[in-house]
């Protein structure tokens, strides 16, 4: 912020209009509203810089260093961490697992939650609101509790999955978390289960904001329900789809809790994700420089998607309205 240097008004109560003032007048404004200036702008910015901005920059800096975290010896190694990254097959496995995690999550959020929201809101269902609460239930739970819950349910020793498999005609149940081929997909399924309620309420809110006249008009023109969905609902929900998608992708990139609670990245490394692999490299193996390099990759990935969302969110909150 360019306090005092700008010719724009620096700080004044919104109702005073937008006239440009001379410099001394601007400083006068800051003095008059010093509490708002200090606690409303300087303080949150300082908090941000100390707890978010600086740590993230430092992570980027650390990604060019080698450091075990114990000693004071922080050695500059240039791009060595990134070279290691490129040659580390476990990194690429975590990376592709994260991409799979994103795609899998989007199936739950953009397809399943959307369909459910439409069905639950439609007039062809009784008790839509009550049923919606069912799907929202997991959102209230911590991912760790959800992980603990599914890991005992899915353990072959528990027998539940085995019974269901036998009822379906299989000789015995699969060990979903114990097999490299299924562990990751099981985690993604559990994550989708846990997260579905969020896009559901977002789509639901979006649906209630579509003017009834639009559907009415489409009906009068002879549109079938499916055509209404395609030509009225989908276009009207575009902003909702953007928000739902971005939020889900960001949530998928940072994935950590479920992997920690359910598989620990195993069997082998088969269910490692970037968010988990970074943590293990940093806080288990104490390769802080390498962990920082993985974090930097996560940062780049997230920033791509975050920009879309944050700009929209900032605009809406500051300018009011829906």
């Amino acid at each position, binding site marked *: 912020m360019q306090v005092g240097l700008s010719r724009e008004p620096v700080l004044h109560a919104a109702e005073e209009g937008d006239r440009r003032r001379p410099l001394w007048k601007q400083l006068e404004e800051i003095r008059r509203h010093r509490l708002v200036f200090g606690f409303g702008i300087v303080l949150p910015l300082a908090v941000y810089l100390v707890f978010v901005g600086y740590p993230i920059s430092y992570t980027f800096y650390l990604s060019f260093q080698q450091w075990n975290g114990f000693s004071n010896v922080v050695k500059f190694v240039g791009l060595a961490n990134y070279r290691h990254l490129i040659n580390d097959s476990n990194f690429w496995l975590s990376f592709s697992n994260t991409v799979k995690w994103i795609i899998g999550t989007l199936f739950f959020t953009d397809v399943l939650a959307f369909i459910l929201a439409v069905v639950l809101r439609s007039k062809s269902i009784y008790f839509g609101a009550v049923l919606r609460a069912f799907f929202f239930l997991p959102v209230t739970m911590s991912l760790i509790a959800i992980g603990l819950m599914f890991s005992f349910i899915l353990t072959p020793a528990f027998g539940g999955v085995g019974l269901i498999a036998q009822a379906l005609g299989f000789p015995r149940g699969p060990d979903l978390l114990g097999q490299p081929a299924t562990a990751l997909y099981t985690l993604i399924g559990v994550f989708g289960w846990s997260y579905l309620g969020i896009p559901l*309420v977002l789509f639901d809110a979006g649906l209630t904001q579509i003017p009834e006249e639009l559907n009415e008009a489409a009906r009068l023109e002879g549109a079938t329900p499916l055509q209404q969905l395609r030509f009225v609902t989908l276009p009207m929900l575009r902003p909702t789809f953007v928000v739902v998608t971005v939020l889900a992708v960001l949530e998928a990139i940072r994935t950590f809790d479920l992997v920690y609670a359910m598989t620990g990245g195993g069997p082998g490394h088969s269910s490692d994700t970037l968010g988990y692999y970074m*943590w293990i490299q940093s806080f288990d193996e104490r390769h802080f420089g390498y962990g920082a390099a993985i974090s930097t990759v996560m940062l780049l990935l997230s920033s791509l998607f975050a920009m879309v969302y944050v700009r929209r969110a900032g605009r809406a909150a500051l300018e009011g309205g829906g």
Partner: protein
Amino acid sequence: MTVIHRRRLARLVATAFVLVFAAAFAYPALLTLITSLKSENAVIDTPLALPTHVTLTAYATTWRVLNFGNLLENSLFYATAGAAIGFVIAVYPAYAFSRFRFVGARAIFILLLTTLMLPQQTALIPLYHALTWLGLLNTRLGLVIIHGAWGMPLQLLVLTGFLTNQPREVEEAARVDGATDLQVLRHIVLPLAAPAMVVGFLLNFIGIWKEFIFAVTFLNSDSLYPLTIGILKFTANQYFASFTLPAAAVVISQLPLIALFLLASRWLVSGIYTGAFK
């Protein structure tokens, strides 16, 4: 008549279909509740059936083995203190961003909001070492400060979104009468913003209650662990022979959240919506 009948039948069929789906969806949670109320032998014999004899043994054992009272106390403290810090930091900026114009307002607001979007992992290593350096690693204070700083933007977003849509006539009248910023904030803005403050605080509270990665990175002793770390003891091998214990741990650790949601679900859902869109 037949049309109406057919429509009603279609509605019933559709409802039944969704109901089955919803039941299947909620089943794992229900199964966990059922399991927690059975004896260990009953679980082995009939894992999916309802309990024939309801027993609370698992709860008693869980409470004792995990030192559950302590975990509960810790979680309650972290969530309350963290959300309170976040609240205190968020009030003034929400007022500033919704009521004042200044250079770079939007850029600063957006910058603050990026906290919500970025993976915690991107700041984890430096925060860990900063806490070590300050002697705050493995302390309640250290964790709570970080929860507060990272929780603030959510409360800021909810509050600013609410305030921006509030009418300002009363405030302007008060200003004309010579009220200071602080007086306007204390006597006019904040009382009206009470619902948004509660929603923001509760969402932050719930977020910290569920939080794991900060806690597991910055804490390293049983007496300080929140529920999210404490209940994981039951995935360790020594207890894995039991299914009723993890089930009971899941149920009692999530009960406060589920109760909170049942009490305030409409508000909280509107807050989630605000948090996502505004």
